[in-house]
Every structure is written in C-alpha cells, then in structure tokens.
C-alpha cells in the first residue's frame, strides 16, 4: 500500500476510534455502523480525488460534497432529487432534523435514544471531523495538528458523559491518534530512502529491513514511545489527588463533611463572623455580581446596620419587618436636589454562604428575589424569614448611587429631633476621652460635614493608626479607649470608634456591616470574597440621608464627598470619570461584550455569566446552534489565542486582588505598575529597567501620545509606586485598577489598528511566560545536577571506606 493510502486509512480509523467515545451517550450502535460506512465512502472519495490528482482545496470540496450527498441519501432521501441530490427542500429537512435533535438532546439523559435528529447530529459531526482529519493529515500532509479535531470530538463526548472520561475511550482515541502519527512518521522516513534495521534485527533473519517482516528499529522505538506515553497519560492522573476519579479521590473527603467544600459561614453575630472572615486563611468567594456601572468603588454591599451603642458594642435594634414592597420607600432624608443614579446589579451567592441578611448596595430601591424575605425599613435591610438564607441565591437589586456634593453635605440643616435623639445616644459611662479626642480632632470645623471629614482623615491618615486584623475585637467599656491609645485594629474598631465619636459630636451615626466592592474578574463580573468583609460608619445628613464614610486605612475607598480637597460648590467629581469610563470602549471583557443583544436585559446576562454546568445543560435544549463543528472551530481557534488568554489572565490576577494591610497595598500597587508597563510594552513601548518610575511614566505618556485623564492615570500609578517603594509611610491609594484600565484605553486610542491588533492577539509581554518557564527550567536542571553530583560523590566515597 502506498504511504498516502496508509495515512488515509489511519485517519479514517483514528476518527472512528475517537468517535467511539460517543458510544455511552447514545443508545445502540446503529449510528456507528452508519458512520463507519459513510466515512469510509467519504475517505475513499478523497483518496480517488488525490489519485486524479485534483488540487488540494478541490479534494476537500469533493469530499465535503460527497459527505453532503451521503447525508442526504441516508437522512433526507424523500426530499431529494433522485434520492441523493440535495435541493432547498433537503436542506429544510436537514434543518428540521437538526432542530429536533437539539431538542432531543435537551430532553433525554444519556444514553439518549438514537432518534433521526440525534443520529444526524452525531453522524454528521463524525463526518465533519473525519473530513478535517483527512484533509489535514493526508491532503495537506500535516498529521500532528489533526489531533486537534480528534481531541475536540473526544472532549465533547467526555464532557457530556456522566462519569466523565472513561479510560477505555481515552485509550481508544489516543491510540487512533498515535496510529496516525506513526503512519505519518513512517511515510516521512520512507521518503529518505530505505530504512535499515539494527545489526541485531538483521541477524535474526534475512531482509530485516523489509517492511513486511519484523518492524525496523525507528518504528519499534516510535511504538515504544507511544505505548509509554499512553501508559503515563493513563497512570499519572490516577495518582494525582487533585483529579476527581483518581485513586486518591476518596481520601480527601470525610464522611460527614459533604464533598469537602467546607462548613457553612454562620452569621448569627455579624461581628464575630466578620473577624473570622477577615482572618480566614483561604480566601473564598461568597458572592459574585454583575453590574453595568463601570465605577464599582462605591458599591459597598451592606448586610445589616448596627444602630444601638451600649458602650461595649454596637448592636442592631429589634425592629418590625414587613413584606418586601413592590418598590422600596424613598431613602430617609434624601432630597431631590442630590444627584443620584439608579443602577441594577445581579447577584449570585455561593452555596455555602448562608447568611440571614441579604447583602446589597445602599440604598436599594427594588429587590427581586425568590422565597420568604422581609424588609426592615429603618435599616433598609432585607432579612430571611423562617430560616431563609442566602445560600446559592440569585437576586437582582436596583439601587441608587447617591452623589452628594461636599457643599450639600456642609449646608445640611439639623436632623429631625426624634432621629437625632435616637442616633446620637451614647451611654453615660462612655469614657470622657472619646468625646475629648473627638473635640480635639475636629477643632476648627465649621459644620458637621467638616467634622466627619476630619474624623475620617484622622483615622485613615493623620492619626498614625495601623490596620491589623489579628487584634482582639475587644469588649468592655474601655475597648474604644484602648483602641484610641494603641492605634491598632481593623475595620470594626475604626467604624465603631468613628461612629461613637460622631455621636458624641451630635452627628447621628450608626455602623454598617457588609462587604467592600470586591475585585473584577476577567469575564466582567465582580467577585466578593470572605476577605472583603468590612464594617463602616454611616452618618446622617438631612437632605442626603445616611452617608457612608471610610475611616479604615488601606481598605475600600473614601467617597469623593468625604475628601477635604473636593472643591466647594462644584459637582461631586465621580460624575465625570464615571461617564467617560462608561462611554469609552473597554479593553477587558465587559457586560456589553459578553452579552448578545437579545440577552441585554441584565437578568439574562447574569444567568449566562457564571459558567455553571447546570445552566449550560439547561440551555442545551434550545442551543442547537452550537453543534460539534462550532466546538471544533472553537478549540482549534483557542491555540493561536493562547497569548491573548494568558495576557487576560495576567491582567485579571494583577488587578483583581485587593488585599489588606501594608504588604498587600504594596504588592497591589506594584502589580498595577507592572500591568501598565506591560500594556505599554504590548503597544510598542519597550520597558527599560534603568529608568525610574517617573521617567517610565513620562516615556509612556510621550511615546503613547496619552492625554488628559489617561496621562494623569499613568502618573498617579507611578506616584503610588514611588510611595510604596521609597516613602517611609505610603499614602493610601485607591482606584489603581481603574487607572490601569484608563491607561490601556488611552494607549489603544493613540495606536494604529495594526498595533492594537498585535497588542490584543500577540502581546509582546507574553515573552514573560517564556522567561518564567526558562527560569524554572534552569532551576530544575540545577537542582538535578546538584542531586546527581551528590549521588555520584556518595557512590565514589563508599568503596574508599571499604578499602580503609
């Protein structure tokens, strides 16, 4: 048989062997028999076309046409001309069958009955894969990449099977691919001339190098390598504890502990759970949410409001709850003069996050959630009724982004007497030092807003406080005094103390417990983890309502109205950047990118966002438009997209880890800086490590032709880097991720289309991956060399000891 013929046969066999992985999914083997026959004819047509010989693309077209005729003959004979020639009716029929097949797949569990629709999908899929494999391996003489379509076929089958990947099907599919490679290798080798065996094989019999007799040495070696690789591929995953189904899978999970996912996070006392959450060694995701609002800095998720201060701790008052109204009442004290923006956020809580209060932005205006939930109007919280909790809940919250100006807060009239009396109550035995300190810090302030700002600034910058989650929460009447002296604590201490001090100054105050906004993920959602748990004070200003402040250093973000440099009378600054940020195109995948137009309603986008297997399976019924061929194309396309994917992942990791403490701020700032310089590198501005951050920033602005906000963003990040690297006490910096995004947008805007495309698809900074690999490899080799030298030395020493 000619080399090409053998190759075609092997491609045929490899496709069928990979297709065997579909066997557990479909009842009966009738479809396989059909596939064996039809694929045989299609491959034969290819062999004929190559013998003619036709041009290579024409060969592929001929094979595709043969495949179509065959499918018509088998599945739509009655709707075709002469039983084989497809017309418009035939196509209509095939379309109907495919639709029916899609519905059947959604309807039946595996193994599904082999209805006409399912048979057409499977056989058609096998024919398409067979055509691709044949074209790549035989027609275009490139056998190795033909593994990709085979892999796609196998992956689809393995992914849909209930028991995951059965080793037998893997063995079959892998053997088929190896067979193809072997045939290809043999064919290439034979083109160099005759292949001679080793002297040993020659001695065994005459004509040892004849292909008919014992296999020649290179082929034997090839087979051995193949068998060894297969053996390793089968054996190694069985020994790895991380892979489900391995030998060690049963060892990690206890009998009573479920599937090893850990216990539940109880929230009987939100404060106890807060510190526990902050100190948890594993930072677990509790909530994921998606919103159109680009600037998520202010999107604190509030769980509960603590309004009763007994001198020892802050507690939540017992209040009446009602059913959730259609539209929540207007927030207390919020007047029409204050600029607001309504945003919609879709949440998805983790299964193990069992919390009685619903985390949501403040102030919510509409809550859409299933189950028995009640509304508490004074604290504007939503609480589960009869043990209802957030575990695994999905809900949508409309809320207001309140953007008061510093002037509005400064001009706020006195709060209503009843409210003021309730929220400024402090116990009589509160140590006098609290009020004295408050008076001292706010000396010279003209109004309550200035007092609040001065308190916040004192806690976060000027007072010399240090963020430390290991400090005891502290109980007793002296807890606040102790905190004011030792100046070490975490959000609970900061928020409690600021709220208590505000009350002594006559400003109505309470403490909110919840989460900071979390960190962005590559798919545009935001991830909130246990380490994002937080507490912050809310102060009441008539005309604006309850207003958030942020006294905790290095956590969250301070609202613009609470920064004392906000120009009086001017509009609150977030309005501008928010607008520009949302108008400008975003490089990272965002809601609008990942959401098709028909899913633009946020509900549907959210449902599609977390790639749950359940959701995918549920939507499979109407998803016939993503048949096998689509998957093949996707998988094949993924290979050249690797640099892009690697880069996206790097970006997400660098910008998406808002840690706490000085060390985290440092690493986050440096990561943001690395991200900016890599982004510049991707756009053609090579990094130069002999330049200082300032010089680099100036270089990026000059060469990247950055202007306005983008240029300011580069300088801000460079300034933050200088702070964390060289200043004795770095200033707290927020919004680094947004700044990095602004720089990226600016660089994209200033670059030509070619540069933009290159930066997206083949970013220069991916060379870091190569460097990292090379460094790891060198280290490994070094270790190996040292080990082998030590071993050799030990072996050499042993006989000398014997001699002595």
């Amino acid at each position, binding site marked *: 048989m000619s080399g090409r013929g053998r190759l075609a046969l092997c491609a045929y066999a490899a496709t069928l062997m990979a297709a065997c992985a579909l066997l557990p999914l479909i009842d009966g083997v009738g479809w396989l028999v059909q596939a064996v026959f039809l694929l045989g004819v299609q491959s034969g047509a290819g062999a004929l076309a190559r013998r003619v010989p036709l041009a290579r693309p024409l060969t592929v077209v001929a094979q595709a046409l043969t495949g179509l005729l065959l499918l018509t003959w088998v599945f739509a004979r009655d709707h075709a001309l002469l039983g084989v020639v497809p017309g418009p009716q035939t196509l209509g029929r095939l379309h109907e069958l495919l639709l029916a097949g899609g519905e059947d797949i959604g309807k039946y569990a595996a193994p599904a009955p082999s209805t006409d629709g399912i048979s057409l999908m499977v056989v058609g899929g096998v024919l398409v894969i067979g055509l691709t494999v044949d074209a790549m391996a035989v027609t275009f003489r490139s056998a190795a990449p033909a593994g990709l379509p085979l892999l796609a076929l196998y992956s689809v089958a393995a992914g849909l099977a209930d028991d995951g990947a059965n080793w037998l099907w893997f063995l079959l599919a892998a053997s088929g691919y190896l067979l193809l490679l072997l045939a290809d290798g043999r064919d290439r080798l034979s083109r160099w001339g005759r292949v001679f065996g080793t002297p040993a094989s020659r001695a065994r019999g005459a004509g040892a190098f004849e292909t008919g007799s014992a296999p020649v040495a290179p082929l034997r070696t090839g087979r051995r390598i193949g068998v060894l690789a297969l053996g390793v591929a089968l054996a190694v995953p069985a020994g790895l504890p991380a892979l489900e189904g391995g030998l060690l899978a049963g060892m990690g999970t206890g009998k009573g502990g479920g599937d090893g996912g850990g216990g539940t996070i109880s929230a009987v006392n939100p404060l106890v759970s807060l510190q526990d959450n902050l100190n948890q060694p594993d930072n677990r995701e509790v909530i994921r949410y998606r919103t159109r609002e680009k600037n998520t800095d202010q999107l604190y998720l509030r769980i509960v409001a603590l309004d009763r201060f007994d001198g020892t701790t802050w507690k939540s008052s017992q209040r009446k709850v009602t059913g959730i109204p259609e539209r929540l009442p207007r927030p207390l004290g919020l007047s029409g003069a204050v600029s607001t923006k309504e945003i919609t956020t879709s949440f998805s809580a983790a299964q193990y996050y069992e919390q009685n209060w619903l985390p949501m932005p403040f102030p919510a205006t509409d809550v859409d959630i299933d189950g028995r939930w009640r509304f508490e109007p004074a604290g504007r919280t939503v609480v589960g009724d009869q043990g209802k909790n957030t575990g695994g809940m999905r809900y949508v919250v409309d809320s207001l982004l309140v953007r008061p100006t510093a002037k509005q807060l400064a001009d706020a009239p006195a709060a209503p007497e009843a409210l003021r009396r309730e929220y400024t109550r402090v116990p009589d035995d509160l140590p006098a030092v609290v009020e004295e300190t408050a008076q001292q810090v706010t000396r010279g302030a003209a109004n309550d807003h200035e007092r609040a700002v001065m308190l916040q600034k004192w806690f976060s910058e000027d007072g*010399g406080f240090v963020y430390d989650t290991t400090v005891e929460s502290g109980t007793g009447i002296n807890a606040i005094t102790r905190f004011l002296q030792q100046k070490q604590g975490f959000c609970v201490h900061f928020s409690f103390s600021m709220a208590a001090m505000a009350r002594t100054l006559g400003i109505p105050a309470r403490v909110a417990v919840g989460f900071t906004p979390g960190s962005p993920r590559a798919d545009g959602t935001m991830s909130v983890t246990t380490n994002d748990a937080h507490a912050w004070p809310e102060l009441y200003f008539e005309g604006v309502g309850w207003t958030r402040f942020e006294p905790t250093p290095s956590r969250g973000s301070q609202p613009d109205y609470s920064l004392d440099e906000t120009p009086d009378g001017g509009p609150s600054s977030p309005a501008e950047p928010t607008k520009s940020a949302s108008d400008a195109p975003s490089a990272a995948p965002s809601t609008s990118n990942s959401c098709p137009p028909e899913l633009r309603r946020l509900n549907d986008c959210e449902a599609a966002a977390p790639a749950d297997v359940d959701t995918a399976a549920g939507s499979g019924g109407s998803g016939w438009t993503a048949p096998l061929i689509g998957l093949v194309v996707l998988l094949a396309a993924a290979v050249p997209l690797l640099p892009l994917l690697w880069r996206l992942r790097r970006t997400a990791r660098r910008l998406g880890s808002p840690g706490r403490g000085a060390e985290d701020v440092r*690493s986050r700032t*440096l990561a943001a*800086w*690395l991200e900016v310089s890599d982004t510049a590198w991707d756009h053609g501005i090579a*990094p*130069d*490590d*002999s*330049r*200082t*951050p*300032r*010089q*680099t920033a100036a270089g990026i602005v000059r060469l990247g032709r950055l202007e306005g906000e983008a240029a300011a963003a580069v300088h801000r990040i460079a300034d933050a*880097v*200088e702070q964390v*690297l*060289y*200043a*004795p*006490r770095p200033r707290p910096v927020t919004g680094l991720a947004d700044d990095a995004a602004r720089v990226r947008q600016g660089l994209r805007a200033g670059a030509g289309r070619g540069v933009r495309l290159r930066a997206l698809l083949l970013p220069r900074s991916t060379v*870091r991956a190569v*460097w990292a690999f*090379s*460094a790891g490899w060198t280290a490994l080799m070094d270790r190996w060399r040292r080990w082998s030298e030590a071993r050799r030395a030990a072996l050499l020493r042993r006989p000398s000891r014997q001699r002595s």
Partner: protein
Amino acid sequence: MTTYDDRASLTDLTTTADRVRRSVERVIEGKPEVVRLSLTVLLAEGHLLIEDVPGVGKTMLAKALARSIDCSVRRIQFTPDLLPSDITGVSVFDQQRRDFEFKPGAIFAQIVIGDEINRASPKTQSALLESMEERQVTSDGTTYELPSPFMVVATQNPVEMEGTYPLPEAQRDRFMARVSIGYPSAEAELRMLDVHGGVSPLDDLQPAAHAHDIVKLIEAVRNVHVAEPLRRYAVELVSATRSHPDLRLGASPRATLHLLRAAKATAALAGRDYALPDDVQALVVQVLAHRLLPTAQAQLNRRTAEQVVLEILQRVPVPTADGSQKAYGADRSSSVPLYGQQPGGRRP
C-alpha cells in the same frame, strides 16, 4: 510618616533655599542648574569643586554663595608658594605668657573659598585633607573644631592649563561634586554686560539666610528617608565603576556616601521627606565623575569619565518592583557583575 514638624521644616527648607538661590542667581546669570547644585552640596554637608576655564565666573559663584548666607567667609588664593600653615594656622611664641599660641589659619570660617586650588603645590593642597573630611584642624598635637556649617568651595582651571598641579586622588575624593560652569548664552552674556558693567553685583548682595538657619536645614536633610532598595541601587551604581573596563580607578565607598547625601538634599529641595531614584540619578555624574580615572586606552579613545558614568546609569536597573528587574532582563541579577572581572589586579 511625615509629621507636622518635619513638614514644616521641609517647607522652611524649600523657601529658604529658594531665597538663597534667587540671591545667587542675581549674580550668576543663566546657570540655574549650577546654582541649584551648589545649594544641594551645601545642604548635603559636602564640598564643591568648580572646574572651568578662566573667566566664566567660578570665583563669582563661590563668593555669591558665601555672601548670600550670613556667615563667616574666608578666601584663600592658592599660589605656588603658599604653605600649609597659611591654611591651617600656626603656633607662635607669646613672649608675655611665655607659651605658644595658636593663630588660626584661613580655614577657620564657615565658607572657605579656595581660589585656583590647583596652583598650589600638592603639599599645600594636602593641608586641606583633615579639615575637609573631619571638620577639624590638628596643629602641634591639639585639635581645633571647625565651625558649622562648613563648606569648601574650590575653583580650579583644567589641568591642561599651564602652571597647575592636578589635585591628588585623596583630595578629589573629598569633594562631593564637581561642576563646570560653561560659557553663558549670548543673551545671558549681554545681560551680564549691562548689569556688571557699572558696579559689581556682589556689592549689593544681602544675606538671604543666616548660618544657623542653614544648620537647621542640614538637620532636616539628614532626616530624609532613603529606602533600602534605593541604598542598594546607589551601591550598585558605585560598584559598577569599580569593575568597568574603561576605568583604572573606580569610586570609593565615600563616593556612595556622598551620592546618598546628595540624593537626600535633592529630595528635600523638591519638598519630599523621602528620596527617589530620580534624586540619585540627578547628581550621579557630578558626584562620581571627578573621582574616576579612565584607562590609557579609554583616554586614547577619547572616552571621558562622564560618558562612562552615563553608560553605567543606563545599565544598572532601577529597583522598581520585587523581582521585576529580573523580568526585564533575565541576566541582570544583582549578583552578576555588569562587566566581567578583569584578570589580575587592576587596582592601583
């Protein structure tokens, strides 16, 4: 953390320094960098060497700086027949008390202008060694402290000029920075003709700061924070000069010290209480170049010490992120010398 006191003194520092700078600039036209550098050296407790051809205003700069500060000033004209005792002082026998009495020399002042320092013999030049480094004078076994602040501003003509003795290496090393004034631009020269034509502008110069103000400012500069990576950066820059193939003599550890002090002063003048790599880079040529001796081969190739320092500046990575130095150039680990060590001792 920046305390309110630090901040206040930093503000004082910038305003006072600004006053002195403006005062000096009234005399030295169109050379703001030179004036700024001399101020930096003053605040960094260093000594300044002004080297240039005759007639460009070296002495004028030294005198203007001295006049702008209300402090004691002495001027020494270095001549071939000047003796060491003329500088340090001499013990003379007091007939009445029947004892030796020490008559302080010209060095006992807060700002000492050494004019044309390279016209004196090396013996006389060496008389400055102890006073410049240790800020004291020892004569006949007795040590006399020098006042504070103390700064030697020396001028010299390039050694190619006739009748000069090049400064010994030890002497050069004691100067924090060397600066060349250079010829003024045409406009500045025209302006100078207008202003200097009638009277000497030095005559009108009023002190812009008092000596004890300067002592306070020097104290503030000492408190400027230098982060550990930055100190390492300075060490790497200086040690790179010791293994550079074009240099016969690299810079000393004293040079590292001077470099950091200069960086601190630069940072303080910019109103910061911490130094940046930019501060180190700003003065590295002026601080290092005069201490380096190019090899004969480099001299033949017309390579100057300044060029070598600039080249080193482009090769030593700035500490910007943990481990990122390696990321940009995998072979730039700090343990590997930038230039291969030369076989045999090149050290003189």
